[in-house]
């Protein structure tokens, strides 16, 4: 029962949605609208899984005092405070600031009390956090109701939790989320620089080809490469090949340099000894729209067939990984 019904459900949903794609009849369109609305709701609930495992992981780490448990408290506190501020409909700003601080103070008090051996047995740190969070939630809702009845009106834009467009959302978004999220990715540029110097090597023929294509695209896509003829880029490439051949005495590099040099000469003659007008940006555009387009299209075919095969195996119940361990 625990496996057959989910598998049947996945089969029915998969087949009906595929058939629906081919049937324009109003019944099929109606069925489609209904299920899309349901999916939007169930999809939003899926967030429960993520939040649940997050809280479980960090609270477990705190309870077991594993290395770095202090930071887990920070993570859970941040989650609880931001979620509560967001969800309380009419929490007022200074209540929103006052209550979390009160909860933290209460938490610290309980931690001190807990360090006394007698009490350690029945008050664990996890209950402290749960207690503090509960306190904040109850107080927030109560204040919201009271504020409603007694008309404690704060300036309109201060109230309203993370209601779209409210002041709280902007504060949390622009001054906490944006700097953290943006900086987390900005440090990648530094890793890129040190990896470029210490790891990106033309070890194999393929890696060398990759780096040359990367150089053309990188220079072609920025203003500095805008008026550099591709001809000079090739001259530099010939020089680099020659030097590499000299240093490593690898015959292949010399042949490569020679062939490229001959090619350049022919190209020069073709343009009657004037520098061919093909600019770097146009070459980069060619690299992107011919070889790159062909390679990416082949990858799209591969990924599409792979994705379809996997989806089909899920629908037909051949692939059951998503069911998880489970007894039967």
């Amino acid at each position, binding site marked *: 029962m625990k496996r057959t019904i989910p598998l049947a459900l996945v089969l029915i949903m998969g087949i009906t949605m*595929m058939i629906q*794609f*081919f*049937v*324009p*009849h*109003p019944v*099929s*369109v109606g069925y489609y609208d209904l299920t899309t609305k349901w999916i939007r709701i169930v999809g939003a609930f899926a967030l429960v899984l993520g939040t649940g495992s997050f809280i479980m*992981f960090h609270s477990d780490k705190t309870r077991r005092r594993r290395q770095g448990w202090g930071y887990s408290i920070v993570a859970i506190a941040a989650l609880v405070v931001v979620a509560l501020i967001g969800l309380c409909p009419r929490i007022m700003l200074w209540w929103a600031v006052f209550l979390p601080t009160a909860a933290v103070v209460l938490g610290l008090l309980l931690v001190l009390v807990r360090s006394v051996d007698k009490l350690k047995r029945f008050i664990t740190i996890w209950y402290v956090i749960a207690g503090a969070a509960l306190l904040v939630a109850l107080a927030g809702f109560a204040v919201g109701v009271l504020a409603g009845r007694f008309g404690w009106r704060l300036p309109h834009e201060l109230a309203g939790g993370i209601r779209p467009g409210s002041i709280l959302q902007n504060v949390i978004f622009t001054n906490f989320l944006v700097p953290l999220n943006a900086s*987390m*990715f900005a440090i*990648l540029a530094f*890793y*890129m620089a*040190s*990896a470029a110097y*210490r*790891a*990106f*090597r*033309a*070890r194999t023929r*393929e*890696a060398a080809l*990759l*780096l040359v294509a*990367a150089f053309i695209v990188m220079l072609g896509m920025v203003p500095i490469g805008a008026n550099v003829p591709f001809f000079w880029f090739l001259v530099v490439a010939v020089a680099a090949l020659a030097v590499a051949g000299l240093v490593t005495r690898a015959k292949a590099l010399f042949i490569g340099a020679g062939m490229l040099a001959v090619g350049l000469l022919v190209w020069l003659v073709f343009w009657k000894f004037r520098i061919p007008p093909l600019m770097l940006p146009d070459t980069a555009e060619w690299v992107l729209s011919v070889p790159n387009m062909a390679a990416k299209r082949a*990858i799209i*075919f*591969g*990924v599409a*067939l*792979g994705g*379809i*095969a*996997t989806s*089909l*195996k899920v629908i*037909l119940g*051949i*692939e059951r*990984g*998503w069911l998880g361990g489970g007894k039967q």
Partner: protein
Amino acid sequence: MILLLISLLAVGQAALPDSGAVTAARPAPPGVVKATDTPNDDGKSINISWSAADTLAQAWLVERTEPDSVKVIATNKPDETNYIDEEVRDRVRYTYRIAAVAAGDTVWSDPTPQVSSSPQFFNTNRINILIAMLVFFALVVYYIETAKKGKNLFVRRIAGLDAVEEAVGRATEMGKPIVYVPGLGSVADIATIASLNILGEVAKKTAQYDSALLVPNRDPIVYTVAREIVKESYTKAGRPDAFRPDSVFFVTSEQFAFAAAVDGLMVREKPATNFFLGMFWAESLVLAETGATTGAIQIAGTDSVFQLPFFITACDYTLIGEELYAASAYLSREPLLLGSLKGQDYGKMVILLTLVVGSVLLLLSKLPALGFFSRIVGFFSTR
């Protein structure tokens, strides 16, 4: 849809209306007026199209007659010679008339035969998708069934696997450990499952040659599965005693903290070989770079297109996208993996064959005799 258009045009030329004496100012009534139920829709819409008999008309009036009312429902600009009426009810009979309007004169065409809209049960434009789906489904299911029946399906040995063999050998000669990172993905990612299959193989070798193996993990579930696989491989290789449980360990779930921790491990242990097989994101750069600077042989493999360029330049050998799946299918001989891999392989063959044959026919369609081949491109359009 195409046949409809062509028949429309053909009929249009044949029966040009020969209206009576035409005064200079009076426009001729519009030519062939056709009203049809819009095909491949959910009903409630009728397609009206007509052809301009002359260029005098400044506007067109579209008039609809129903059992109980007559109403002009639209005025179109001269160049718009069709209109889709969507305020109709299904199974009610309508007739339409079109008027050419010019300098005060309104000349009505004769009414169209009665027509009523109705929903269709099959969208004929999407036959091409239905055929493609059926062909590919048949291939995948056929190969999975044959694989299940135990018939051995041939999958070529991926060049990457020789590199794996040689890298493990090198580590044993130098007596240095091997670091195997099964990626940062979860058990749901195909790349992680493929990586765990290859881990089993590598663990068998380290058991035989008795060299040290370190497996840091980022996902708790992948950690538990990896430990089982390594334990099983050690027993299969007949060396259950050599298995050290702490060689497979969980590090952290934060992306960059995990990368920093594995970097520390590589700098401390100075491994001879690093394996980065599975799902990677932006932190792949950090891992590959530190690994390269410690001078270890590095073999990577992932299906995330964004990280492949970095692995290709920073590692000695890289399994590109589907090669990772093929390697795991080759090693594990698991019918599910083999079946779907073969199904996709022959799916690709069908695509390539269609492309080549289609292109040849299309190029031939330039010859006058084989003009109808040019319809092939239309067959592949999507609506």
